[in-house]
Every structure is written in C-alpha cells, then in structure tokens.
C-alpha cells in the first residue's frame, strides 16, 4: 500500500433529492507528492469527487455518503475546521473566489492567513513570496473585483497556495480563461508539482493533463472507469467513446500508425510526438 495523502474506500455519494448517486462505489488512492488528473465528460462526477475529497460533501451539500474518505489516515470529521490547513481548494469560477470583504489583492491573499492566526510579519513575507510566484505583485493594491478572469484565477490560486497546504484540489481552473491565462495557471501548477505538493486536478484540456499528471483517473456516470499512467490511459483509442477527448498528438499518432507509419508508441505530449515522428521518419528513410 502506498503512502496516501487521500484515500477513498468504496465511496458512494447521493445529493439531496437526487435519485441516483453522483459517485458510485469509488475506491482510489492519491499518493503524497503525486499529480493526479481527473477527466471525464460533463456530469461524470468530477467536481462531486473533489468536494467529497475536500469534505464539502456531505458537510455543506448534505446528501448521503457511504464508504470512507481518509486524509493522511484520518477521517474528515476528525479534522473539524482544520482541514483548510491540510487541503487547498481552487474552484472553477474565478469570479466567485473573491472573499468579498477585502479591498486590495494583497489583503485578499492575506485573508486565509489572518483566519489562521499567523503573525503579521510572517503574513507579509509569505504573501510577498506567493505574489511573486503567481506573478500578481503588480496587482497588489488593485481591487480584486477589478481584475480580469485570468488575474482573478491567479489571485485565487495565490490565496490558497499561501496557506501552504500539503494537498491541492484544483477544479477546472482554466475553463474560463484564455490561452495566456491558462498558460500562467499551469506554470504555477508546475511549480507546485516541483515542490512535491499532492495535486488533484480536474481539467478538460487533456493535452495539459498528459504533460503534467503522474496518474489519470477517468470518471463516467459517477464511476471510476480507468486509472493509470497518462501514457496508458490517454493513448487508449476507446476513450473518446466514454466522452473523453484524447490529446491531439495521440489522435494524430494513431492515424499515422493506421496508415502504416512505423510508430512504436502513441505519443501523448508534443515532446513525445516529436521524438516518435523523428524516429519513424528515420526508419522510413533508412537512416539511423
């Protein structure tokens, strides 16, 4: 058994008034320091799984939960209100992640630390570091409500990262962002991965999941239908039948292979594709 940051054992969850469970008999382990990508079609239960892992369901959403969710070996109720220090959560919509009581970005990022009772000097040091990391230093005195979607999402990420949680659950952070905003958010996520944080990321942009994730979980109708290394999962040509898009390079690699191109493995990232295509071209031309 691995050293799990979060472990789900036979988790089934039904929302209040719903007839069918949103998550059904799901068992999965998220190892410490791992980067997990959760993919699946709309309504597959990705966000529901995230709110269960964070303890918002059933606590906030009510409903019925069976099975067990363990965070570093302890059940969620054992943490009481202190789960915020352990698990950071970033939501999909950047506009709803502003506290609504702070007048500047600096104060907004500091808000969580104020709630944690961190000393003033330490707050300033940590906030400055995080603002530099997330590239929002120049926004420090702006109102959080006057920012663009990408800037707001970076502020939301900074507000969570500053709490230094061991585990980060990030739910479709780029769904409302332009390519530039998406790149800046993923640059931050990559830095968090380098810091060995446990990251659970829900994302539709599978190209990015392919590039960053250590493991991929595929959900459909609340069930975990596949779990494994990105190269195994995202090169599976039956995945689109489950409502999940594949990386574009994987689709291209498969098409070339079907046309007789000598490709050893289906690439899932641009880097792998360049290597595979170069090898295949060399073989075709007879050069080593």
């Amino acid at each position, binding site marked *: 058994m691995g050293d799990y940051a979060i472990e789900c054992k036979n988790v089934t969850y039904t929302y209040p008034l719903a007839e069918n469970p949103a998550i059904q008999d799901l068992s999965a382990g998220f190892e410490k320091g791992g980067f997990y990508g959760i993919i699946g079609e709309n309504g597959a239960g990705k966000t529901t799984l995230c709110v269960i892992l964070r303890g918002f369901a059933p606590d906030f959403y009510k409903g019925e939960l069976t099975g067990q969710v363990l965070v570093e070996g302890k059940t969620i109720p054992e943490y009481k209100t202190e789960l915020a220090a352990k698990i950071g959560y970033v939501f999909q*919509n950047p*506009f709803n992640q502003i*506290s609504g009581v702070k007048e500047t970005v*600096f*104060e907004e990022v500091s808000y*969580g630390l104020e*709630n944690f*009772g961190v000393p003033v000097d330490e707050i300033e040091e940590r906030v400055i570091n995080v603002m530099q990391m997330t590239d929002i230093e120049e926004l420090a005195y702006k109102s959080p*409500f006057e920012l663009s979607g990408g800037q707001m999402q970076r502020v939301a990420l900074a507000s*969570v990262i500053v709490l230094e949680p061991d585990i980060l659950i990030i739910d479709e952070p780029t769904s409302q962002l332009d390519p530039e905003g998406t790149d800046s958010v993923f640059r931050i996520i990559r830095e968090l991965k380098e810091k060995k944080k446990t990251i659970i990321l829900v994302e539709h942009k599978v190209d990015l999941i392919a590039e960053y994730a250590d493991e991929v979980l595929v959900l459909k109708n609340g069930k975990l239908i596949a779990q494994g290394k990105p190269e195994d999962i995202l090169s599976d040509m039956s995945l689109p039948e489950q409502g999940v898009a594949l990386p574009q390079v994987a689709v291209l690699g498969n098409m070339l292979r079907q046309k007789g191109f000598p490709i050893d493995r289906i690439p899932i990232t641009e880097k792998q594709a360049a290597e595979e295509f170069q090898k295949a071209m060399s073989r075709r031309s007879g050069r080593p």
Partner: protein
Amino acid sequence: MENNYIEKIQIHRKNRIAGLYPSAKGFIVLAYSISTFILGTFHLTDMRLDLLLIPWFFVIPVLCIISGVLAKSMKAMKAVATVSAIIFAAQLFLIPGGKVLWSFGFLKIYVYGLRSAIRLSFLVLDVAGIFVWLFQTTSNKELSRAMEDSGMNYKAAYVFMSSLQMIDILGKNSKSIMNAQRARGVETEGNLIIRAKAFFPSLVPLILGAIIGSEERVLTLEARGFSMQCQKTHLFKLDHSGLEKPAVILSTLITSALLAGRVIWGIMR
C-alpha cells in the same frame, strides 16, 4: 523585511474629526438622531410646525466642513436632498386637513400637509444626512474592524462588510446584464414602461447569479479557514484620533440639553 504592503493598507486620517474612532462617530450619529427626534417634538407657530428640524440640518454641512469631507459628500447629499424634496412635495400637496393655505387650480396646500411635509422631509434629511457624514469619513473596512473590536461575532462583521461590498458588485453586474440583454434585443432605455419591461429580464439573472455565486463563495471562505477556531490576525489596525472622549461628551451634553430643554418647554407651555 520592510512592512511596506501592510503599512500601505492602513488608513491614517490627518483630520482629527474624520479620524475619530468609528464607535465614537457611531455615538455622534446616535446622539444626533436622538436629538433630531427630540427637536421634532417642538411644535412651533400656530400651525404646530416642526421648524427646529430645518436649522438642525445645518449641523451636517458644518460637520462635513470640519471633517474635511464637504466636497466628496456633495453627491450623496444631493441624492438625499432629492428624496427629501420628493417627500416634501408629495406630503405638501397630497395631505388634506385644516385650513387651506394656498390654492392654484386643483393644487391645494393645507396646514396638515405643510406640517407633515416639514416633519417627514427634514427627519429624512437630518437622519440620512448624518449617515452620509459617517460613511464619508469612515471606510467599510474601518466600520467592519470596529465592529469586530467591539466584540461582534466575526461572521456578523463579515456579513456587514460583504453586503456593503456587494452593492458595488451587483451594480456592476447589473450593467453587464443590461448590456447583454440589449445585445439580445431587449429594449432597456426609453420611457418608464420600457424600462419597467426590461427590469425583470435583467433582475432575474442578477439575483439568481448572486445566489449561485454565494454557494461557491461560502466554500471559498471555508477553504480559507473562515471557521478556524483560533485567534484571528488583523493586518488592518484602527487609529484613535485622541478626540473621541471630548466628542462623545459634547454629543451627550447637546442631546441632554435638548432633552432638558424639551421637558422645560413642555412644562412651561
């Protein structure tokens, strides 16, 4: 490391009246409001008019001048004065009773109408005016911080602060929704009926959006340790101007004097 950021979010008011601690300003507002109601019981002239409410209003511009906020108070004061003028006109012409003081065609001004117009419009002007002074000299975060300092639950202080912030946000959102509705062909400008028709298609998404957004905001707060059971830190510190005690004493004296004056005046009559 220099405390640059934290220093820059502080509010240091040079004017010692504007810089009074918010609870002292709150006391002044309370004392002024009580005094307004006391003055409203002085019925002068044969028509029993509450005429003292009129000069009493001039305390507000004086307060604004000595607080150094007269210029920035003007916009809000104009709005209050407009509402007050509408109330005055409505009461003056619509309330019958007593002797007719003036008539022109179907328009008539009765004694009761004049009495009610002065009482209501100046009560509104005086009480709303003192709140204009309070909000022009006190920022939302000063009020919220003072509330927490006074022992108010942090959740209640949050509700107060976020409600004030939300007024601006909802205002901006409503403009975005209006623009979106206009782009879809909904007429939003024109006479009162056209504007009324545009009201509901704009209001429903605004309210629903706010309700849906509030759910995620609650979870956002939880994710940032809002409910953590510990002593919270406050980066924002409130200053005292040093005039709090004299201000409270003076307000108490004026209100007490007015109350005493009212009692004596009542006995003498």
